[in-house]
């Protein structure tokens, strides 16, 4: 009991000092902290505690890629491929190429035609994405039915692979979009098979964020159909700025992916907000050709299947740039140019979960958490003091260091502090003293049983230790399960609770023991004060 190895004393003091060192930056104002980051050497800790969205305010959006939409575009591509192959092989079909569920089917009555086309169709099934020699599962399955019916079915693996790629692409596009909003440290990550989590701290205008994230932004330039056009080649599309539909040719002249730049601007004559854009070489050429061939006719600028505007072509536009006007507000023009610059999403996105906290509530929560922590701290502090006297002071000291260590642990792990996380810390204030209580009560008991001061202290620590480990490990298991199952705020609770349990073993057991050993060495008391 009285012997305490020097290295133990040194390492405990060092741990305490390092912990204090780690939490100092969090207490400083942000501008001082960033100044420190620039001037101080690398090893000096300058990182602050990471606050969760519920404390600093911000938006948490869980978006889901519409896998039906992905499948639909995959089937359309497949149908185009099948059509190309059959045409190349001069195969004769009865009926057209049909889409049904997850398959493309076509009837090729002549066996010779089938013999030539089938190997080429089979070649489609080899997954294009399986690089690095990985043998991926086939993307398509090809069935030959009676009377020349050929079915090409998209396999489960094929759909999954496409969805995976669509999510990758979506993340890239979303990142460009969110970056364009100029927010600090957005977090965009994949979640599960078909979801993307977007967290933007400190954002005020969530409506704008949702608008920018949720828009597919598929831009197309198409001709407005003539009165005499074949109805099969025409789509009736809605307009953004007025009711009524416009007949638009199905054929797309130029697509948004051929844009290299888009900027909001104002029309020089009308002063109305517009978006200026520039095509890449291919887009510029196509647009030039199309406009040359159709002078005098109107064309439609189509965004996500809605006509923004349908201006008349006054002359060939060959400069590779143009402008979109559509009675925009300034913000709409801004948003559209962000969307066009970032590119279109590969599939529709829907918001499946939204949690936004305003900065006001976040600040209130921090204040409330602090107040609760202070009150809990003072109550427990006093209660320990009046119950255990000097030993209570030791426990209180250990408690203070315990709290410092939890915060240091959070900084060190760069774990997120959430409101339930603060609750977890407050809870460990109550529970941390449990270890001390177990020890002290045991010491009292042993001393009442007639042991000398030293031997009561010794027995108290030793006997209580097993129980402390037992009882703390049960709580720790609960914290671990919570960590793996929870997300966001709940995970924050698990982290602070878990850290609290770990540090309590250090502070309540080892540190109090050291303090009591020192007290005994210098005081040589004949009687225990508890």
């Amino acid at each position, binding site marked *: 009991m009285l012997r305490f190895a020097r290295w133990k004393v040194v390492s405990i003091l060092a741990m305490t000092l390092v912990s204090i060192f780690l939490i100092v930056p969090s207490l400083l104002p942000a501008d001082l902290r960033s100044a420190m980051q620039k001037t101080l050497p690398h090893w000096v800790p300058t990182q602050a505690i990471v606050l969760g969205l519920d404390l600093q305010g911000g938006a948490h959006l869980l978006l*889901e890629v519409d896998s039906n939409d992905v499948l639909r575009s995959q089937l359309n591509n497949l149908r185009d491929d099948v059509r190309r192959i059959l045409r190349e092989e001069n195969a004769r079909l009865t009926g057209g190429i049909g889409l049904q569920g997850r398959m493309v089917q076509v009837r090729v009555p002549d066996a010779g035609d089938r013999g030539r086309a089938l190997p080429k169709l089979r070649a489609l099934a080899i997954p294009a994405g399986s690089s690095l020699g990985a043998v991926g599962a086939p993307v398509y399955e090809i069935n030959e039915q009676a009377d020349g019916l050929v079915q090409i079915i998209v396999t489960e693996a094929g759909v999954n692979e496409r969805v995976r790629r669509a999510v990758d692409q979506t993340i890239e596009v979303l990142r460009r979009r969110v970056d364009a909003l100029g927010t600090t440290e957005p977090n965009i990550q994949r979640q599960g098979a078909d979801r993307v989590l977007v967290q933007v701290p400190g954002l005020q205008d*969530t*409506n704008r964020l*949702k608008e920018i994230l949720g828009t597919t932004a598929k831009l197309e330039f198409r001709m407005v159909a003539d009165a005499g056009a074949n109805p099969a080649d025409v789509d009736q599309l809605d307009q953004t700025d007025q009711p009524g539909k416009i007949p638009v040719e199905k054929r797309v002249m130029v697509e948004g992916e051929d844009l290299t730049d888009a900027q909001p601007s104002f029309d020089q004559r009308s002063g109305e907000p517009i978006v200026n854009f520039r095509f890449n070489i291919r887009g510029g050429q196509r647009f030039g050709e199309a406009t040359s061939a159709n002078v005098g006719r109107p064309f439609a600028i189509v965004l996500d299947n809605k006509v923004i505007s349908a201006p008349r072509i006054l002359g060939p536009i060959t400069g590779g740039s143009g402008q979109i006007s559509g009675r925009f507000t300034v913000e709409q023009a801004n948003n559209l140019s962000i969307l066009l610059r970032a590119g279109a999403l590969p599939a529709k996105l*829907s*918001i*499946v*979960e*939204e*949690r*936004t906290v*305003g900065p*006001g*509530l976040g600040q209130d*929560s921090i204040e*409330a*958490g602090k107040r*609760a922590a202070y*009150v*809990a701290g003072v*109550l427990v502090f006093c*209660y320990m003091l*009046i*119950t255990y006297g000097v030993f*209570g002071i030791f426990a209180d000291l250990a408690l203070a260091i315990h709290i410092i260590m939890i915060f240091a642990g959070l900084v060190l792990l760069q774990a997120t502090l959430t*409101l*339930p996380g*603060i*609750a977890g810390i*407050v*809870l460990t*204030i*109550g*529970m941390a*003293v*449990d270890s001390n*209580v*177990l020890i002290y*009560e045991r010491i009292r*008991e042993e001393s*009442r049983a007639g042991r000398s001061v030293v031997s009561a202290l010794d027995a108290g620590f030793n006997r209580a230790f097993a*129980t402390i480990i*037992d*009882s*703390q*490990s*049960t*709580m720790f*298991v*609960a914290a671990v*399960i*919570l960590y793996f*199952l*929870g997300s966001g*705020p*709940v995970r924050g*609770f*698990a982290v602070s*609770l878990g850290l609290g349990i770990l540090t309590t073993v250090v502070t309540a057991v080892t540190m109090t023991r050291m303090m009591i050993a020192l007290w005994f060495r210098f005081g040589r008391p004949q009687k225990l*004060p508890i």
Partner: protein
Amino acid sequence: MRTFRLAPDNMTFGFMRLRRVSYPFSALMSIISVLMFLSWGLNFGIDFAGGTLMEVRAKSGQADLSALRGLGDRFALGEVEVQAFGGNADATLRIRLQPGGDAAQQAAVERVRETLGAAYEFRRVEVVGPRVSGELVQSGTLGVVLSIISVLIYLWFRYEWQLAIAAVIATMHDLLLTVGFFAVTRLEFNITSIAAILTIVGLSLNETVVVLDRIREMMKKYKKLPIPQMIDLSINAVLSRTIMTSTTTTLALLALVLFGGHVIQSFSLAMMWGVLVATYSSIFICSPILIYLGVRDATDKG
């Protein structure tokens, strides 16, 4: 120096005699919990039921609750639950899950936002779609089941079967009464409530382990003593610790309930209840079971 204590030293209270009161009492409480759970169910929050929760603050300083309630009829959103809290300016709105999937949720939120945007500040908006809420139910259930399994495994390794059974019964008792607490108080049951329940499982086990450890120690020390007396002796020995710890934990939680803000109030309340129940069951439920299970045999063989 005389120090303050809640439990006197050298207490010899006959806790085991009280089992004739505590068992019927707990049985009654458990039955009430089950009945309440089955008839009233839990007041599922949007995490599990899906839907929209909005916390608004009137810019004028006075929230117009009836106008807020009227939003439901005005936009055909179904019933909109409006609750005032804090000052006059604050209110929460709860909008049911809208038929028509995620897009319908967003449309409803947008309409309410547009209508209220001028007069109210949106302090918090949470929208949980039907599929996400289904998944949260799954992971929440999985969490509770997993924690129970890990508790069982832990006890299996740690104790003789009689003690393990006693601990399991005590933990289940606490779990049941906590669920009953949620059913009776109509506190909103959310993901954080699952966190509270798992913490209560931990706390309950914590209390139980301390008592059982002492019983096991006493069993070896006083082999001749009748079981009820031996258990009484053990409980009296750990009683001051049990009271001390539950007091400090309750004090901390009380601070959270009173000052921690409304966002985590139900979380803190549930945990406070859990501490009380766990303390009670470790003494009055867990330990007397050992009398019935004939715990002495185990140690003789072991």
